[in-house]
């Protein structure tokens, strides 16, 4: 399946991917509306940085996903494209998946709120927004490598 891959060499740490992720997930039509109130909601992609090294990390959509195995409410499932998706109506915010994810790619949506994770902009008719808005091609959407 196609996954989002990040090339650390070209990541500028600008964090635009995080903002476009939030916008895409929000379903809003106007970019600023996704950020009402100012503080950025958690995104499905996160830039990790220390000093001059930075790179974005997001869900690997593992072959053998621990998050899915550990989910107590059946909120996590694999869709027809192979992406691990969360059903927000079922997620109880227990954070078991967050504790299990070896990549640290699932983030809390707040206490007792559904978790946030990359769904590859599934259900949208566009390339994942973190990819198309990366100013330096540091994030690409490509077919499987060996994982």
């Amino acid at each position: 399946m196609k996954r989002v891959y990040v090339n650390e060499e070209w990541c500028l740490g600008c964090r635009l991917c995080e903002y476009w992720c939030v916008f895409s997930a929000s379903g809003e039509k106007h970019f600023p509306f996704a950020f009402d109130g100012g503080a950025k909601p958690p995104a499905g992609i996160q830039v990790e940085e220390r000093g001059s090294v930075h790179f974005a990390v997001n869900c690997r959509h593992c072959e053998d996903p621990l998050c899915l195995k550990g989910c107590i409410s059946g909120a996590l499932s694999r869709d027809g494209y192979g992406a691990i998706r969360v059903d927000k109506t079922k997620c109880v915010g227990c954070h078991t998946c967050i504790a299990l994810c070896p990549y640290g790619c699932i983030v809390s949506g707040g206490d007792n709120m559904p978790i946030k994770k990359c769904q590859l902009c599934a259900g949208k008719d566009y390339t994942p927004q973190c990819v198309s808005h990366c100013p330096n091609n540091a994030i690409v959407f490509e077919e499987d490598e060996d994982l």
Partner: protein
Amino acid sequence: MIDYIQPDYEVVRNKDLCVKCKVCVRQCANQVHAYDEKRDALYVDNSKCVNCHRCVSLCPAHALKIVKTDHCFKPSANYTEDIIKDIYRQADSGGVLLSSMGTPKSYPVYWDKMLINASQVTNPSIDPLREPMEIKTFLGKKPEALEYLPDGSIKTEKYPNLELKVPIMFSAMSYGSISKNAHLCLARAARELGTFYNTGEGGLHEDLYEYGENTIVQVASGRFGVHPAYLRAGSAIEIKIGQGAKPGIGGHLPGSKIGEDVSRTRMIPMGSDAISPAPHHDIYSIEDLRQLVYSLKEATDYKKPVIVKIAAVHNVAAIASGIARSGADIIAIDGFRGGTGAAPTRIRDNVGIPVELALAAVDTRLREEGIRNNVGIVVGGSVRSSADVVKAVALGADAVYIATPALLALGCHLCRSCHSGRCNWGIATQIPELVNRLNPDIGARRLVNLVTAWAHEIMEMMGGMGINSIEALRGNRLMLRGIGLSQKELDILGIKHAGE
């Protein structure tokens, strides 16, 4: 101390649109933008803004714009704002004013005062999408006549020529003045386009030797990075006598830009200023130039054409005539509107002549003397579009050099602050985090796109004139008409006025 210089630009933030993502703060190397956590507010220091548009281009909410300040001096057509500010700057610093890129002064642009012909009724125009259209160009000395051996093969001595799929090359920009990634973009694009890029006088980074077939290596007055392997690495060697933006003076790359890689490539100590002398100290005459031309040919087994690049100055035709007799294969003429990484402002803005006039004068002179075939002619120094290329070829150029348009394709916004070394677009900088902003995969593609688009347009214009080979356009000044030019200007350009 009183600060006499007020900011030139104002950063305007639309607070309704701003989502406080702080990409502006992270991306501005000039530290114009900042964020105050206590007040949860973004603020700006306009005095640091160079108007490079990095923040504007990356702002996901389109919340930013940069405007020229309307803070003003009492208007004067003589003591303009620029003049006043320059005087303040020099009274502050006591130094020579420095500037980057081409002159912004409003000198006449002769490209814009020439119009191109097209066929109507009596001669057919050609559709380049349906019929063959040749823009391949061979650069170098051409034989006067061909002699054949009895078996039909060519007996005439063939001279080394550069083969260009498009009559456009990337002109000299040194590694040091621009980043390694910028060089990599130019090298990759040149290879894909079947043309050449030019190392400038900073030597050739070891990682770029693999692009040698599409590289012109430069030998300038500082001789930085010149050694036998370097000379053999390229397809042609260019002796740089002068640069359009700063005729008559040398170059100065500040020590702060001479890091480990640049130091190794230039073969000079880290952190030392790289100062190119104004003249080549071994060239004081055409005879001396001939010695260097033949030294370089000897060093490369007479297999590579030698280019001599000069700035367009008052006696350019006579100088070019000398160069054509020196054994050089190609003359490159750089007009005074051409760009630079750094030049004394007064020289950039006042020394030299427009390349259009220089080209016409050189081509005319070499034809009159019967030595036009001795050399190819390349012009640079503000060739801004495919129309400029067509006009240059019609005036007599074999090919053109472009640099500023190439940099624009890579993201340059002509903020003319290259000399600061903090190019936000990763071009004119050696700071690793900034250099990384220019991904060669993107840059090379954009350069290829630009030149491909120009090539299409050149073919369209040629087709319109009923010409299907660029050879038939070269020096074909009947295809040009002047508009709004004096008789003297028309005479120098060798063209008629529109309507004639």
